[in-house]
């Protein structure tokens, strides 16, 4: 029976099946797509708090990259560049979400949300805290935000080094600095209740 899955695969692996076919236009991009698309989706899901939205953004990024082979050839470290583009796309999506929410609030949609059952209030509070974290991440240098997201997504130093295009031996230093900067900015914005 051809359609039966005979083995167990990590969920992330299945994300490859949803990856855009257009990446086949460039072998280098196709290679990155195969190896890094699942990790990029996990990183974006962490950032966005929504797996489906993360997959959409990653798909859009790879599709756009596949349509601009000149940009790909100009990049010295294609892998790091793809991660950077994906991270920026994630933050752009967050900004669009924020603008949409403000419009909804202005239109009174938020009032309907507040009238929802009590467990929804917990969800809203959690989402507000996550919004604070996202705001601070968006304030950081892209590489600092990336390393925090990648590490918090469970990537090993070797994988982070590959994604950032840096030596594995410098990941510890970059991570320590990014954590210090994140904490400093979080305290500056929201006080010492960290």
């Amino acid at each position, binding site marked *: 029976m051809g359609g039966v899955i005979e083995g167990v695969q990590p969920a992330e692996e299945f994300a490859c099946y949803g990856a855009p076919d257009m990446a086949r236009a460039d072998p280098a991009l196709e290679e990155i797509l195969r190896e890094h698309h699942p990790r990029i989706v996990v990183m974006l899901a*962490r*950032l966005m*708090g929504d797996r489906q939205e993360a997959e959409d953004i990653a798909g859009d990024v790879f599709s756009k990259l596949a349509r601009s082979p000149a940009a790909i050839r100009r990049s010295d470290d294609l892998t790091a560049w793809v991660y950077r583009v994906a991270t920026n796309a994630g933050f752009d999506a967050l900004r669009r979400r924020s603008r949409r929410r403000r419009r909804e609030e202005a239109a009174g949609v938020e009032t309907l949300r507040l009238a929802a059952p009590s467990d929804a209030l917990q969800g809203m509070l*959690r989402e507000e*805290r*996550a919004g*604070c*974290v*996202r705001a601070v991440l968006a304030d950081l240098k892209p590489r600092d935000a990336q390393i*925090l*997201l990648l*590490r*918090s*997504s*469970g990537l*090993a*130093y070797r994988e982070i080094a590959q994604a950032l295009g840096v030596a594995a*031996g*410098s*990941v*510890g*230093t*970059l*991570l*320590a*600095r990014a*954590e*210090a900067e*994140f*904490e400093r900015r*979080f305290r500056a914005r929201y006080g010492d209740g*960290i």
Partner: protein
Amino acid sequence: MKQCRSEGELRSYLDGELPAEEIASVGVHVAECAVCAAAVEALAARAQRVSALLGELSGAGASACLPVQRSRRWIATAAALAACLALAFVLLPKRTAQPVRPAPVAAGPPAVAAIPVPAVVQPSHPARPRKRPQSRKPEVQYFLALDDEPFEMGVVRRVALGPEEVLADVVFSPDGRARAIRLVNDSGN
């Protein structure tokens, strides 16, 4: 004491991301260097706080990928080492003036110790000028476990603790953590 470790090395050490031989080396250094020990503690605390905040993104609480467990174990180990040091000051007789002080760290290669302890110490000294009153049985010197986690193999390093340079044998497990300790008296046992 070797040169202090960089922030990046200590952060990698917390995550267990250093090469195995480096983990052991950094572990030994951190155990004897107050500056680096404080830096590791500060890095671990900050990593935990940042991890908790980033955990809000998934709505699942603190992330599991940061070294909360490791840092807590390290703090417990450090506390146990400090307790042993305090015990050493109380129990060991005060040293009188000695012509030669022992080296802070044993010069010989580290020995691989089979655990469980205790280790039986054989009297391996050459003939001494002092006459012993009678033949002595080998002394059994027990290691004090620094935590209750079992381990099968480790490396024994002789270290000098504190400003008084109290000698102690410390067993490090393959992941670089100090797991057991015994104090060494002046005769070298």
